[in-house]
């Protein structure tokens, strides 16, 4: 688990100082060691967070014994030990016990053909000097990040965008991407909000030649195709439980202490339970508590930890701390944040850092198994048709925020658009009301993945939605987790994103996917049955923050709110069409009603200030 950087210049020889500047901008991702390799026009850099094989011999960049291949790697290959016999038989000698060395030899032996055999998360660059070819690869579900820029100077890549800026890649807004940011809350696919900075898509690789003048992208992992090729599973509940335990077992492989992010909900509780039931020792649980009982599950997490013999650590962050953490996480994230719980995750990671170097999380369970309340609309057709009647209910009769939101959502009258916009806060009616009337409503990537989802699950709207979410919303959660945990030099592992588990679950019949109760039928009826009732019967509580109150009451945020109309952000489309002063005033009068709009623009403006305005904390 580390940070990687690199470039392939078009004309100039590799500058070591540039490489070092890029590399050191990622020191938080790897405080244990830093090194680089440069030759000709190519430079590769690495910051290391030592998890497996803590010796210096496992530092990167890794160079093959023949000297022809160079690898910089961020991530973990959990099944790396299974490749030893095969590689040793082929004559490879191992100098370390690191998974990096195994990956290097696999790539040398099989090329990218080995990728489908890897169980883990990763982003790496593999250079073949003789053939003058560089390959960049990213894991299946985007747990580990990789960004690149192909500009007039050369091809630059890094684990985080800030390292590209450190390498003098221009920091400019790509205005055409702001439509998607505003409506959908984040940019999907390869696009970022920055000009000429792209993300390598999860499950994709790029082959580079001639300084990036030749660039070929391939999709090495296609979830739909893998699901189609999956053998039938005879006993889904039993299979799920066994596969989940396997996933946990693999994710406990570490030469440093491993803890668990424990909210007290079903997903993280299952993660801790699996560790305990498999006999893992010295367990620790890390929890965020809230004084507000509506948001708090710490008492459940404490009780479960005690029963499972895990050391329990719980922290509450007061409002001032939360504002500070959120501001820092905005800096850390580079792109605009969209979950607004980043501060909490950064805070708990900083606390956990004192005792562990790895944290397991329950992330991904909602998207893979179907857990969000917002999925309920598409759960069954009768309910969907009944809910559609809400359009005929006058607004004044809808006292509940959620019902008003539902009316705006279903008011589109377009099932596929509803699936595309399921995780939105704003819909077409809101755009019209706000005067945003010429936006790009249909980002290519989302539309393409929805079409793919329709082919995988032609008759089930809920599963189409899950498939889409697995390629969009899940990526943003992975980004958030990576940036916040790595911001505190902690590795975050996601057992629900084990490839065997995700593909197998995707191949199961529709009856295992419904949003009754807490949803997540497969989990609830397997491991869930072994968990105490106080976990499984407790209502679902998300990691939500009452930002409407905070924005109005915290002096720093309040000042930000008052200054919002002066932000340069509002000179860009589509923000320039907004009546910001009016929105701010309306929010002050009716915080609940205007919360979705204000939250969206408030945090985007805060991000803009952090990244582009001279008084930001970055400078």
């Amino acid at each position: 688990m580390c940070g990687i950087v690199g470039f392939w210049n078009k004309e100039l020889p590799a500058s070591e100082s540039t490489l070092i500047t890029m590399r050191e901008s990622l020191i938080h991702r790897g405080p244990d060691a830093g090194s680089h390799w440069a030759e000709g026009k190519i430079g590769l850099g690495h910051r290391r967070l030592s998890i497996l094989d803590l010796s210096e011999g496992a530092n990167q960049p890794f160079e093959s014994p023949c000297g022809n291949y160079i690898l910089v790697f961020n991530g973990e290959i959990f099944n790396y030990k299974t490749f030893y016999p095969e590689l040793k038989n082929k004559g490879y000698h191992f100098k370390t016990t690191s998974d990096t060395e195994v990956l290097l030899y696999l790539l040398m032996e099989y090329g990218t053909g080995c990728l489908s055999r890897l169980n883990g998360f990763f982003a790496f660059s593999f250079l073949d000097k003789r053939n003058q070819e560089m390959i960049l690869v990213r894991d299946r579900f985007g747990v580990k990040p990789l960004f690149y820029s192909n500009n007039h100077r050369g091809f630059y890549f890094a684990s985080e965008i800030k390292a590209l800026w450190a390498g003098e890649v221009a920091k400019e807004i790509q205005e055409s991407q702001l439509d998607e940011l505003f409506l959908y809350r984040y940019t999907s696919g390869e696009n970022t909000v920055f000009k000429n900075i792209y993300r390598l898509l999860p499950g994709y690789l790029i082959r580079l030649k001639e300084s990036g003048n030749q660039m070929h992208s391939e999709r090495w992992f296609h979830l739909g195709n893998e699901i189609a090729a999956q053998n039938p599973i005879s006993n889904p509940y039993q299979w799920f439980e066994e596969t989940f335990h396997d996933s946990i077992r693999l994710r406990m492989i570490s030469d440093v202490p491993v803890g668990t992010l424990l909210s007290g909900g079903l997903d993280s509780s299952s993660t801790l339970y699996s560790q305990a039931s498999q006999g893992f020792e010295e367990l620790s649980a890390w929890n965020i508590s809230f004084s507000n009982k509506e948001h708090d599950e710490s008492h459940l997490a404490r009780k479960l930890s005690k029963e499972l013999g895990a050391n329990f650590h719980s922290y509450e962050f007061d409002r001032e701390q939360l504002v500070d953490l959120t501001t820092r996480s905005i800096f850390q994230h580079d792109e605009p944040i969209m979950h607004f719980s980043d501060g909490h995750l950064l805070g708990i990671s900083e606390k956990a850092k004192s005792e562990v170097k790895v944290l397991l999380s329950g992330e991904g369970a909602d998207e893979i198994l179907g857990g969000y309340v917002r999925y309920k609309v598409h759960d069954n057709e009768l309910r969907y048709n009944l809910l559609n009647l809400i359009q005929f209910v006058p607004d004044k009769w809808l006292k509940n925020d959620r019902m008003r939101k539902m009316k705006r959502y279903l008011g589109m009258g377009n099932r596929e658009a509803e699936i595309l916009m399921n995780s939105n806060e704003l819909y077409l009616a809101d755009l019209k009301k706000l005067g945003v009337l010429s936006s790009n409503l249909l980002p290519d990537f989302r539309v393409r993945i929805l079409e793919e989802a329709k082919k995988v699950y032609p008759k089930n709207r809920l599963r189409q939605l899950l498939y889409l979410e697995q390629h969009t919303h899940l990526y943003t959660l992975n980004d958030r987790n990576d940036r916040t945990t790595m911001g505190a030099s902690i590795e975050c592992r996601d057992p629900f994103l084990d490839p065997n588990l995700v593909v197998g679950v995707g191949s199961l019949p529709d009856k295992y996917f419904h949003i009754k109760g807490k949803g997540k039928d497969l989990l609830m009826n397997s491991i869930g049955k072994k968990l105490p009732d106080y976990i499984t019967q407790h209502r679902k509580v998300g990691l939500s923050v009452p930002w409407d109150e905070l924005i109005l009451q915290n002096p720093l945020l309040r000042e930000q709110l008052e200054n919002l109309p002066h932000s340069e952000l509002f000179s860009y489309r589509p923000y320039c069409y907004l009546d910001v002063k009016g929105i701010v005033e309306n929010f002050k009068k009716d915080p609940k009603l205007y919360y979705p709009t204000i939250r969206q623009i408030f945090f985007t403006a805060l991000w803009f200030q952090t990244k582009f305005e001279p008084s930001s904390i970055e400078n």
Partner: protein
Amino acid sequence: MRILFLGETYRADAISWMKGVEANLGVKLETRELPKGNSRVLRMIAAFGFFGKLLLTRFSKPYDLVLAERATSYGFFALFVHTKKRVVAQQGITDVYPEGGFSGFYKSFLQRFAYKKADLVHAWGNVMTYAMLESGASPYKIMVLPKGIDLSRYRCPDKKDLSPSFIVTRSLYDLYRHIDIVEAVKILQDRYIYIKGYMVGDGPEKPEVQSLIHKYQLQDRLILKGHVPNDQLPELMDLCRYYIAVPTTEGVSSSLFEAMASGCYPIVTDLPANQAFIKNGKNGHLVAPCQPTELADAIESVLKGGNQVDEALEENRRYIELHVDYKKNMKIISDKYRTLMQNN
């Protein structure tokens, strides 16, 4: 390959669409359109005949593709043609016009039905996609791309040394608000600011516009050019550094693209269709409709614009070359049709 075009084949817009498809797919389009005429009764009878002919296609070999303009008229008729694939192009921000009343009710039904059955729904700009989605069009079926303009016809000469002049290329109909432009020029005259304007085209508003010009004695400043053939328009645009269009409603405007390609700085109404291409004060000016003083202020501000205008003209030309090139776009559009026909 047999392709049928359903639409008003005399309209410049339709002509450029048909020509582009014919050139790229190497096929002569068959066309059908509703008869024109002054008698409502005769038009109704002829419309039944038209509809009957479409139904008769059921008894012949199917077309490979039908292209139809306007969801609520030809787009709906396209559903009755014996064909393998259907493409419907929306003409305005919505084709449900007027939006209210019984007409709005039944037209919204026609639009929804047309989009549900179409294999491809064509939007010339993002501004059209709102209505498409609200009419139930599948996102995957929506293609957003303007047909573009023939760039070889429009140069972008240096106009810095020309005396200030603007061009208006919209026909003289009330909705295009030529009288506001005359009023704005009068206001500028009162402020001792000189600008000359050329108004191209004819229309029912001509007498009123003419009389207003006379009333304000602006004959030397505002020239009514009448009908100017399309091939002579670029020459006239070369004489003007500014383009003015202040209608009360606007779809995706080819005239705006032509102005942007010709080096005419756009001063246009602040409407969604224009917002998609013009950012106020950056590459053009957006003004409220029916506000001559605001228009006059904008013209005055632009005349003092200096570098901003120069940069805008360059930027606009670049934008058009990149995104609104007829040759490039019609190839993309035709390729999409070809793929559609191949996916049986």
